[in-house]
């Protein structure tokens, strides 16, 4: 859990307090903390003078606006058919074995979250994953294990 502090107020000053400011504000909180806490959403509702239910409704509509606790590194495995054809399941198996979590879970030390995502547009270099904002492509179990080991040492 993180404390929102002045963040919501600062972001509202930056993006405005209109209805259209809602998405950019939520996106920037997620960019910073990887997910939205209840406290953050209530705070956004107060700043924008809309109901907390509306903020939650918007956040829960979008998969990238997570309302569950997420780790420092969010690993998104592309679940699209082209990645499946090129061995996505081996990549997931390797990740699950290394991190000792299943798809949809976060490690207990809150370092890694593992989720599946829609097409990330690297179909010609499948299979692909995103770790936070960084794409990794043409993966093999060996390649993915080297990548994760690097992140573990960060």
């Amino acid at each position, binding site marked *: 859990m993180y404390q929102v502090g002045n963040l919501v107020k600062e972001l509202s000053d930056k993006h405005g307090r*209109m*209805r*259209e*400011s*809602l*998405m*950019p504000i*939520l*996106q920037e909180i*997620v960019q910073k903390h990887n997910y939205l806490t209840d406290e953050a959403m209530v705070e956004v509702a107060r700043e924008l003078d809309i109901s907390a239910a509306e903020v939650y*409704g*918007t956040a829960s*509509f*979008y*998969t*990238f*606006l997570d309302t569950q606790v997420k780790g420092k590194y969010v690993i998104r495995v592309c679940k*699209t*058919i*082209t990645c*499946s*054809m090129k061995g996505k*399941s081996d990549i997931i*198996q390797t990740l699950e074995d290394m991190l000792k979590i299943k798809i949809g879970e976060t490690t207990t030390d809150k370092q890694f979250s593992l989720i599946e*995502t*829609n*097409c*990330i*547009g*690297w*179909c*010609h*270099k*499948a299979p692909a994953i*995103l770790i936070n*904002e960084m794409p990794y*492509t*043409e993966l093999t179990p060996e390649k993915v294990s080297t990548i994760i080991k690097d992140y573990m040492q960060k």
Partner: protein
Amino acid sequence: MAVRRIELMLCTGTGCVAGGAFRISEALEKEIQKQGLEKEISVIITGCNGFCGHGPLMLVQPDGIFYGFLTPEDIPFLVQEHFLKGRPVKKLMFSPPEKKEPVPLLSEIPFFKKQLLIVLRNRGIIDPEKIDEYIARDGFTALEKVLTSMTPDDVINEITRSGLRGRGGAGFPTGTKWKICRAEQKMPKYIICNCDEGDPGAFMDRSVFESDPLSAMEGMIIGGYAIGASHGYIYARSEYPLAIKRMNLSISSAKDYGLMGKNILGTDFSFDLEIRQGSGAFVCGEETSLILSIEGRGPEPIQRPPFPAQSGIWGCPTVINNVETWATIPVIINRGADWFSKIGTETSKGTKIFSLVGKINNAGLIEVPMGITLKEIVYDIGGGIPDNKKFKAVQTGGPSGGCIPYSMIDIPIDFESLIEAGSMMGSGGMIVMDEDTCMVDVAKFFIQFTNDESCGKCTTCRDGSEALHKVLTDITNGDGKEVDLEFLEEVGNAIKDASACGLGTTLPNPVLSTLKYFRDEYEAHIKERRCPALVCKNLIKYYILPEKCTGCKLCLKNCPPGAIKGELKHIHIIDQSKCTKCGTCLDVCPPKVSAIIKVSGKEMENITGIEEPYPVKRKGGKNET
């Protein structure tokens, strides 16, 4: 910049970098220096060349000779032979699979020869982060022409005459859309660029913004002038961080140059651009939903009419076009509607970008004139199917599209032919499938996708996709019934008829088209409990052929659930109750031995039980059973 005798255009797209492009560049620099050629030859780093399957690669200019699959070890020989002695190196050139003679010139290689680059005109040629390089390649000359010598009506007429149709999927005539918007009285008006590219298998929007971001932006400014808008939005997926970074860079450099913002090029016309990000909702690529998302409201599509061109963002007239459409505009203005409308077919003009992916040798983005046949795309440009497998189908149009079978490989690619074939153009994804792809499984994948992404507003889309998914799951699990096929068709057609937006009305296409062309596969799953492509796990078994097994223990050591029994030089056995059907054993069994097979349907019953491993005895090269 000094002029050199030879320029080496070394590709540093993601694919080539992963293959060691920077090691090639080091090796080149070193050898060039060693031979004292540094005043004659320069190495130029470029963006992606597109022929990723042959990387690391480079183009020798001005000769136009192409070298692929380079390794640092090749470089000293290459530099000495070609650049010192003037003898191009044949073994590093492109060789077509069946022919012995290599093709030296890039322009003669089928992958490039059949393509026509209009939208991708600057791909691999300019540095996307430098506005000067875009300008050097005729960038902003179209904008200048429009602002100084054309009225807004002239611009709309030119676009209408060109025959350009929207590249986002539906193919609505762009000029008509602009005309409707221009005729609206309400002000202000807006321009939107739809870069919420969600179709599985499509990535042209990402690539355009990563390799040439200003071309689409120039198109948007021209569009703004044509309809009378002074503000525009680019709605981009958050999955594309690099594209968004380059959009931001381009906006600020265009503003610095007076090519965006107030009084562009000293005229009265002003135009500003703003980037809005999506957050991972596929439905936001639907135009009404996208507009609601920018407004910060719940992005559930609303019924049209009124169309966005009449009443769009904040209820104001809005022209919303796809990235590729916007990037085509400057070229039409510069080269004229007559030139553009000569390319393509009667009803579909110009070129289209496709992302050629899946089971294909040359995967990547291609841009081809409309009317090219599917066969030319798959075999001439795509280089055919890997490992000599059989071509089964190509899926076009993403989750809204369908599968086109081998029997229709000669159809020309344009908006109408694809719809006739039960698919659609969509944003241009082309997923090639070989004999190892199960078409029921493919249909299930797409229905699962649309079921996840349905916004839930219309019952038919929300619950219909759920119902289709359940039945398809049953069929792939071996629990299908004969009435299921009728059910799929009936529900599919009901969803088509009664959903509000493009997502709902097209979501049954993957099911309906596979039912049409691959009904036998569905029937095999249902009647024989057999998956012809050997994909559906519940319908297959792995089996070790006793007459071939050499008892090497390789499969046993690698089997993740430990389902294989055996010892050294003993025939191995798979315990079917423990087998998870991951296929590892098949992958590790040496090709010379090939003792492991996959079976389905009736063949599964024929697997007779050998209970315990027994010693391998060889007689006449075969095991005794």
